[in-house]
């Protein structure tokens, strides 16, 4: 169906009947403990509420880890490493991971609704992307657990020991899977801290891990804010630190571990260029641009937040893009029709608004679909396109982490490369052209860890993901992601 078809048939924000998922599917509990040494326990850091960003109601109360709790978790992980998980044959570890993958699949609907409630993302995305990929990651790395000598890291690769893992709020369960699966397959035990605003799906995963009968202490999952994260990263009993989050915090972690023996991988921010050449099919490119920046409300480190469009087709592409964005449905994340859900937190909403407002003061022109209505409660931001953006503008340099697309133009492939690479980040990039040799040339020239050609925002457990430059170091996914948890 073409963009024109949408418009002609009158489909639009009001053209759908609501199709909401049932909230009860999430099996929300009023309160959640920390998962330490195989048991759910109370935390020394008090409690915090996890909020539904779509309506600002409290979903559940969650125990917060203190430094002492972090210490207990790390000690439990060490004991499990020394006594159980380390000595266990790889094929037995593999079977535990396969169990977890299966249990995620079996409880996928519950997890999808829970994730949508806690994060604000559309149920369609949680159901079709987050949860299946999380299961797939466990399934993929399960298969490595008994094949480590064949992975290309020497004949007897060894795990590091205890991994301290800190994850962000944009893909809470999926990021937990990205962290836990390769660490466990390699034979490490872990303490994982979820993000402050999205603790629930990680705790549901803890429940799955308990159901899988994983030995106590192999996986410990704690909730809390920056203090808990710092305590974990700085704990002397942690051998490996894996962090996904902001570049600012990533730099602080790199400073904190300096001079220690801790291994570190960092997956940080991005400011990806999505580059559209004049020979690209307009409708495919427009779908790619929309998916690139409005997927998950733009709360994506690899989001295609800078559209670089060849000057000769800029007007045509922008017109088609505005038409397509006008058909996006913003609203109740649990509605299966919803394309754009809620912004994850009030703080994030403020940052998006601040950067977008500042773009206007710097001379950018702002556009959002006139028909887009924001709900009265909750945290919402309309899909936004900024034109007249100069490469020096803050919005073209800083990560917005929201549904805000900056549009720049170029004339030659060389200029596109120069503009795309004009950033300290280097996580991802997109290229849209029908010319194969140009795709490969562009891919070679772009300083980005992932290049999507004629597609965008694709993820797979077998595919390495990670950045150049200030987007961090190390890879997650694939054989390379396994190597991040092995000493050769």
């Amino acid at each position, binding site marked *: 169906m073409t963009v024109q078809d949408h418009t002609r048939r009158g489909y639009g924000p009001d053209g759908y009947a609501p199709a909401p998922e049932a909230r009860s599917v999430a099996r929300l509990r009023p309160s959640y403990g920390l998962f330490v040494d195989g048991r759910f326990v109370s935390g020394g850091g008090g409690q915090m509420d996890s909020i539904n960003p779509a309506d600002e109601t409290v979903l559940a109360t969650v125990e917060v880890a203190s430094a002492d709790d972090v210490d207990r978790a790390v000690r439990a992980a060490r004991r499990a490493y020394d006594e159980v998980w380390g000595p266990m044959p790889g094929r037995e570890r593999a079977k535990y991971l396969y169990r977890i993958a299966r249990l995620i699949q079996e409880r996928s609907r519950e997890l999808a609704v829970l994730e949508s409630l806690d994060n604000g993302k559309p149920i369609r995305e949680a159901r079709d992307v987050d949860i299946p990929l999380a299961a*797939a990651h466990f399934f993929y790395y399960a298969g490595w657990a008994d094949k480590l000598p064949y992975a*290309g890291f020497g004949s007897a690769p060894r795990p590091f020991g205890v991994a301290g893992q800190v994850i962000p709020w944009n893909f809470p369960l999926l990021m937990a899977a990205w962290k836990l699966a390769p660490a466990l397959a390699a034979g490490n035990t872990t303490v994982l801290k979820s993000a402050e605003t999205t603790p629930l799906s990680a705790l549901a995963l803890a429940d799955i891990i308990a159901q899988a009968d994983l030995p106590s202490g192999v996986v410990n999952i704690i909730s809390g804010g920056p203090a808990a994260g710092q305590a974990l990263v700085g704990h002397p009993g942690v051998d490996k630190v894996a962090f996904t989050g902001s*570049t600012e915090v*990533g*730099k*602080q972690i*790199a*400073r904190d571990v*300096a*001079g220690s*023996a801790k291994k570190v991988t*960092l997956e*940080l921010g991005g400011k990806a260029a999505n580059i559209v050449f004049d020979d690209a099919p307009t409708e495919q490119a427009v779908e790619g641009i929309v998916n690139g920046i409005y997927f998950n409300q733009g709360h994506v480190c690899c989001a295609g937040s800078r559209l670089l469009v060849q000057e000769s087709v800029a007007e045509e592409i922008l017109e088609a893009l505005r038409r397509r964005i006008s058909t996006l449905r913003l609203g109740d994340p649990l509605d299966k029709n919803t394309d754009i859900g809620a912004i994850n937190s009030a703080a994030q909403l403020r940052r998006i608004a601040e950067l977008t407002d500042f773009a206007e003061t710097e001379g950018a022109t702002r556009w959002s679909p006139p028909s887009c209505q924001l709900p009265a409660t909750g945290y919402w931001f309309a899909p936004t396109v900024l034109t007249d953006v100069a490469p020096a503008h803050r919005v073209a340099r800083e990560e917005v982490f929201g549904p805000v697309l900056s549009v720049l133009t170029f004339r030659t492939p060389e200029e596109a490369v120069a503009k795309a690479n004009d950033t*300290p980040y280097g996580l991802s990039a997109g290229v849209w052209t029908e010319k194969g040799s140009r*795709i*490969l040339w562009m*891919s*070679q020239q772009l*300083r*980005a*860890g*992932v*290049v*999507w*050609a*004629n*597609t965008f925002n*694709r993820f*797979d457990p*077998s*595919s*390495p*993901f*990670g950045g*150049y*430059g*200030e*987007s*961090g*170091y190390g*890879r997650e996914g*694939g*054989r*390379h992601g396994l190597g991040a948890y092995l000493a*050769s």
Partner: protein
Amino acid sequence: MAVRAAVTDWGPTLPAKLPSTTEPERLAVWKTYKLFIGGAFPRSESGRSYPITDHRGGFVANAAQASRKDLRDAVVAARKASPGWSHTTAYNRGQVLYRIAEMLEGRRAQFAEEVAAAEGLSARAARQQVSESIDRWIWFAGWSDKIASVLGAANPVAGHYFNFSVPEPTGVVGIIAPQESALLGLVSVLAPVVTSGNTAVVIASAQRPLPSVTLAEVLATSDLPVGVVNILTGHTPELAPWLASHADVDGIDLTGAGELAASLEAAAAGTVKRVLRPPSVAPDWLGDPDLARLTHFLEIKTTWHPIGV
């Protein structure tokens, strides 16, 4: 002023100058040891030099004492060389590295004398260091067109996409060279960095820098493009912090950083540099090299494309 001071300090000492002459009646021509930046051999812009002594404390030569400005110039040269060198074919890079070995081979005697003087080795032990240095270039030369096959991958993603990963050079890499092993240690850390297509800014051993300058002469005549390797002599604690914090340096090898390592690693965090920490035990450079140094300054790039008719 620094130069005058050096004359005052060192003037009265009769030098044990290299290379030792075999014709006693002829007055030897002494070599001036300079920096190697962007293919040229400048003195330090600061005008500073410092005396280098052999292992017995005898004066050998004055080395240029590089400044922060020299270091910045070296980074500019390395950055300028990066696009060309990183996109040179792997086969071509391998041939250039092999050429370095050829050039070194032809100057074995000179290097053996310099290494013996710098490290206090017997003539035989020094020759072994030089031989291993030559062979090390050859080992890495052969890796240039194989590393992508070993580290790259076609990834079987669950969907109709062709997905492949290739290793690419990190970019500009700063190297704090080993302080003890003046030639073999330097070659062991430098060769893997440039093999994969990185360009390098090296801070040579502070007390034993002379073999690095002679190595620069080899590099300058080995078809290595200008700026791919830049070598600075001087005081490590003065130069290294600027290298570690430089925003246009993508990675840093702290092998020779000693007690500075932790603070340099912290400084490198400011731009999320890739950091290779110093080994926990002093390495035996005569031992077989492995892939670790070659893989540390690489980025894995993954490209997706749909499959369809």
